[in-house]
Structure formats: C-alpha cells, structure tokens
C-alpha cells in the first residue's frame, strides 16, 4: 500500500493551489456568489493553464479538491464543464466522441448531464421524458430539473424513455446527446440556491425536439445501466468536492483558532472539535482515494465509491458547521458562511446520502466487503 502521490502529481497540486489562491480571491468568490453568475473567464483560464486535465483522472481529482478548498462555487464551476462525458467516453460511438467530446476536451464547449426530472431525482428508473423513434430521428418531449450547466451547455447527455421496458421500468431507458440549440429545447435558469451559486442550474423543457438517431449513446434500453455506471465514476469526483470543501473550512477554522491564542486554542473543547474535523477529513480522503484507485485501475467498487460520496457529504457539512461555531457571530458575513451554504449540496446531488446508503447496503447484502 502506498499512500504517497508521485512527484509529478504533488507538483501539479501545488500549481493548482497557486492558481486558486491567485484567481479565487475572496472578493471574486463573493461577487460570483452574490450575483449567481457563472465564471466563464475563470473556466477558460483554468483550462488554458492545464489545470483541468481530463486525460488523467487523478489530476482531475486533485484539481477539484484543491480548487474547492479555496472556493467551492468557483472550484466546481471551473471543473464541471465535462460533466457527463464518461457516458459518451465509455459507451458512445466514435462519431459522438469526435463531434462532441473533442470540443469539450479542447475547452471550446460545455456539456451537462440531464437525469433528474421535476417528479424525482432519486428514482432514476422513473424517468418519463419520452423519445420516440421516427425514421432517422428521435422526437423528444418532457422536462428535466436542476440541471447543472443546463442554460450554458452546448449539449446535454440526456436520459430518456424509449419504451416501457417489458414491465421493468429501467429496461426502457436510453441516453441521447441533445444539442441545446435544437428547436423545441428550452432552458430556464433557476436562481436562489442556498449555495454553489457560481454554478448555474436550469430547468429544461423539451417539446418535440428532434435528435438524430446517431446521437443515441450505445444501445437502446441500456440507459439506466449507463447512468449507474457513470454515477460510480462521478461520485468519486463529487467526494473530492466534499474533501475540498471540508479542508477549506478546516484551514480557515484552524487559522482563526491559532490567531485567538492560548485562551482559545488551549481549551480542550476547541481542541477536540479541531481533532474531530481533521480526523473526519482524513478518513474521508482515505476512503475516497481507495475508491478512486480501484476505479482508475478499472476495478470499480460501487459500495466503496458510495461510502466515499456519503462520507464526503457528511464531513463537508459537519466541518463547515463546526467551523462557524468556532468562528462565532463575526462569521455571519464572509468566506466561512459561504462555504457552509455550499457544503449542503454534497448530501443532495449525484445521489442523496440516503440513496448512497441504499447502494452501499445493497452491495453488502450481495456479498460486498465492508
């Protein structure tokens, strides 16, 4: 077992951190949060400087972790343009990879993944957005809800229902790549989020949107399986968001405790809180890295991945709340309160904590290891 990263990755981490410290100033973070504005210039800058390197998953994780520790809203925003790409990468045709992914890879385009619907996000197999095959096209109608990048993406990897699936709901689902410029496609930006307000979220409505049949990812009827496979990948990156958020809150809390001097740092109650925060972060990081190492060696373990995601959400929320408690009322305005608001999303998106627990226990009951 080797707990050390290579020198190259350590240097990469250092480079990302320096970028974050320079570009994600508290003033900027605050501005994008207040205005609920997507930081496209920062996305481009991060891309140009090679900080979002999709060819190496460890680098992606490190970028997410480091950037989120400086500011979660900005950190997620600059690392999310590729959201959903693995679905095409693993199951899509060469044409789809060439036509769509290459543009995201080169920093030109932004994409997103549209699974959740107004009537539910946890029950993926309950998707009702219809896609009917007519000649060499699919005609898509339905709505999607809470879609990150929905109003700025060039295209969305979209889960649709192509049949009733011989009585088994999840058999009737497929994945289509849908151009957001298509006639009948409409994205409505949703405002007023608790946190991660630099990221952009939209409600999508599609009315008879025509999608070329060649935009079908893989085979018809396998959409549910593709999306679940994707979640087993993306949850690792989401766990990295949680580690970053928790680390950022912890770093700030530690600094504050030290600054207050012995009268504060000398109290056992304060020391115990710091110790609990640090321990949870360490444990979450270890589980996440373990899950990542299985996945990046093509031997994913869904139970461990879900453990990492669930723990990361819990840790981010715990550490952010404790940091505010330590800081006291002066933190009612500032970086820590923003991080607290950002942290809660970790227990909701990419499978809520309850759904992660279901995934974990189902795998354990099937013989998976704890």
């Amino acid at each position, binding site marked *: 077992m080797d707990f050390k990263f290579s020198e190259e990755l350590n240097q990469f981490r250092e480079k990302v951190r320096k970028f974050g410290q320079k570009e994600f100033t508290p003033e900027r973070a605050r501005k994008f*949060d207040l205005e609920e504005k997507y930081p496209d210039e920062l996305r481009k800058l991060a891309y140009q400087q090679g900080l979002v390197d999709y060819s190496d998953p460890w680098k992606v994780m490190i970028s997410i972790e480091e950037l989120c520790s400086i500011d979660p809203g900005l950190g997620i925003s600059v690392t999310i343009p590729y959201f959903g790409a693995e679905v095409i990468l693993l199951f899509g045709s060469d044409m789809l990879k060439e036509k769509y992914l290459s543009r995201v890879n080169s920093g030109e385009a932004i994409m997103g993944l549209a699974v*959740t619907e107004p009537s539910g996000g946890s029950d993926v197999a309950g998707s009702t957005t219809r896609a009917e095959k007519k000649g060499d096209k699919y005609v898509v109608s339905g709505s999607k809800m809470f879609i990150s990048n929905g109003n700025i993406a060039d295209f969305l990897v979209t889960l649709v229902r192509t049949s009733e699936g011989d009585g088994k709901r999840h058999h009737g689902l497929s994945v289509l790549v849908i151009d957001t410029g298509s006639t009948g496609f409409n994205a409505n930006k949703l405002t007023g*989020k608790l946190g991660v307000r630099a990221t952009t979220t939209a409600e999508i409505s599609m009315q008879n949107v025509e999608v070329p049949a060649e935009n079908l990812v893989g085979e018809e009827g396998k959409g549910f399986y593709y999306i679940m496979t994707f979640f087993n990948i993306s949850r690792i990156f989401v766990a990295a968001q949680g580690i970053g958020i928790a680390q950022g809150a912890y770093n700030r809390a530690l600094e504050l405790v030290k600054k*207050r001097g012995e009268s504060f740092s000398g109290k056992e109650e304060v020391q115990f809180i710091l110790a609990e925060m640090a321990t949870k972060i360490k444990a979450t990081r270890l589980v996440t890295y373990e899950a990542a190492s299985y996945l990046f060696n093509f031997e994913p373990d869904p139970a461990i991945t879900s453990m990492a995601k669930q723990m990361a959400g819990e840790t981010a929320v715990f550490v952010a709340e404790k940091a505010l408690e330590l800081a*006291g*009322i*002066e933190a009612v305005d500032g970086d820590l309160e923003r991080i607290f608001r950002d942290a*809660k999303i970790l227990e909701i998106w990419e499978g809520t*904590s*309850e759904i992660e627990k279901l995934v974990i226990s189902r795998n354990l009951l099937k013989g998976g290891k704890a």
Partner: protein
Amino acid sequence: MSSEITDILRASAREFISKSVPSGENGLEKSGITAELRKKLADQGFLNIALSPEAGGAGLEIEPYIAVLEEFSRVEPSIAMEIMLINSVAGKLLGHFEDGMEMLRKTASGEKSFIVSVPGEYVKNSVHSKEATLSGDVPVAVGGSPEYLIMNEPAGRTLLVRSGISFRKFQKPLGFRALSWGKVEIKDGQYEKVGDRSLENIFLSGINLEVSAIALGIAEGAIEKTIEYTKVRKVFNTSLKDFGPVASAMSRMKTEIELLRTAITSESVHENQEMIRHKSLELALNASRAAVQYHGGYGYFEAFGIEKLYRDSMTMKMMFGGLKQDLILHKKIYGSESGFL
C-alpha cells in the same frame, strides 16, 4: 398549559403572517422588515408585547410573549428576532431613564428603529470615549435601521449611541436576512451609559426563553413542512413517509419538539431554562438540516422557504451558543464552575 391570552396571541400572529408577510421567494428576505411592516407590527401590539406599561407595552407575562416569538419563527424568524431585540434587549436596558424610556416608546410604536452590537467572546468592539463623545468600530451589529445603537464597550459598560453612526450593511449575511446586519463606524458619537446590566450578560443569560422559543419555532416550521412534504412526495412510486428512515427521522424530531414545548410551557421552565436553550438551539439546526435534506433538490432553493430555516438556525447557534454559554450550562448541571479547561 396555555392560557386563553396565549391562544389568542398565537392566532393573531398566524393571521398577521398570512396577511402581511409575503410568502414564497423566502418571504421577507428580499424586502427586509420595512418601516411600513414595522408600523403594522407595532399597531398589532407585537413590538411592545412584553414591555412595561410605562414604555407603552402590555406588560404581558413571559408565556404569551414567547408563544408569539415561536409562532413567528415557524415562518419568519426575522420578525421574532426583531420583536425580541426590542422587548428583551432594548426593553431591559433603556427603561431605566426617562430619555431611554421615550426612545423605547418610539421604537415599540414603530416610529424609531435601532441596531444592537452582537456580543461575543471574540468580537472586539474597539471604541474610545472622550467626555461626551465616542469613536471606534463595532464589527457586527444587527437590527432595524441605524437610528441609534446599543452597544457593549470592552470595559463592560453598555452604551446608547445616538449620533455619529455610519452603518456598512452586509449585503447577504448568513441568516435573519430580513434584518439589517453590518459593521458600524462611530465618529464623535454622542453616547450615554444605560443602566448597570451588560449587553453581553443579557445575551448570555437574560433571554434564555426568548432564544429557546425562536429556535423551537424554527424547528417546528421545518419539521411540519417536511412532514407534509413527505406525505405528498412520491419516490419509487411510494410516499416518502413510507420509508422507515424518513418516518423515523421525522417522528424523532417531532417528539423532541413536543418534549421541548412541554418543557418551555411547564411551571419549572425558569429552573431549566439553560438546558432548554441549549437543546432548542441544537434541535433547530438538526431539524432544519433534515428539512433541507428531505426536500431534496427543492430544499436547496429559496423558493421553498426551507433553506432559510437552516441558515437562520446556524446563525442562532453562532449568536447564542458558544463556549461561554456551555460554561453556564455546566455550572447549572454540576452546581459549580466546570468544564473550563
């Protein structure tokens, strides 16, 4: 046990909310508590509810007063906080001298408004006073509009500052956004000492039941909305309430709420006030966090009025919890100074 007057006041607080407080898009958070709304609250007798008759108040007992705080907090905790700041903070400090009494009367009738510095062990109000004037900074103050300021001085005195106040409002503070929060700069402000009671002392132990009632109201608002939501939201073709962990979480929290409510309305409430305060602050945070969670993605958006309760309850903990508060509780439990190392 609740008296008839308490029931009537609860009902009128509910009616006030439904008629005069905007619903949706997080209620008052965008507009804030305007002078007009403050006047309406005053006209309904909420702003002076616990003040003495000399201050123009009804001089009500604690029970109906905290019932009103609780009722407002279910939907709009900022209003409850405003009522508490007037009745239990300004009310305890300004009523001891004629000028102060006049100010209190005007405040309670909605004609005047004030801000108060929020004390905290590490909040440093750095002010220096001359004979008749004072200058310096107050890092965090909250309230209505900054027509006058009540503040604690590092030396321990509590002061009323009437002029020279410049208030730099925070654009979007964490919680209680319908109130004004900000930093204060005082330049040659006219001031006077108000009574012998320190503001810090009032925050630490003089408003236990008021704080508890606001926190309890937040918890109730959060859990009641969530119980309703889990009845109607279907997930996997099943009502959310039918899943064991969901029903357990809601039942557990509702039980805790009812136990606290029993404690806060019992005759031994004064004896147990430190414990009640501690427990309600904790419960508000746990309940509102769970409420966001069980509303899923919708809970994360302002329009549902749930995330606000999570922010407000965290702010309550920062404002009214903390190590000094813990020490008071420890002393209560052990009967002597404990847990200070």
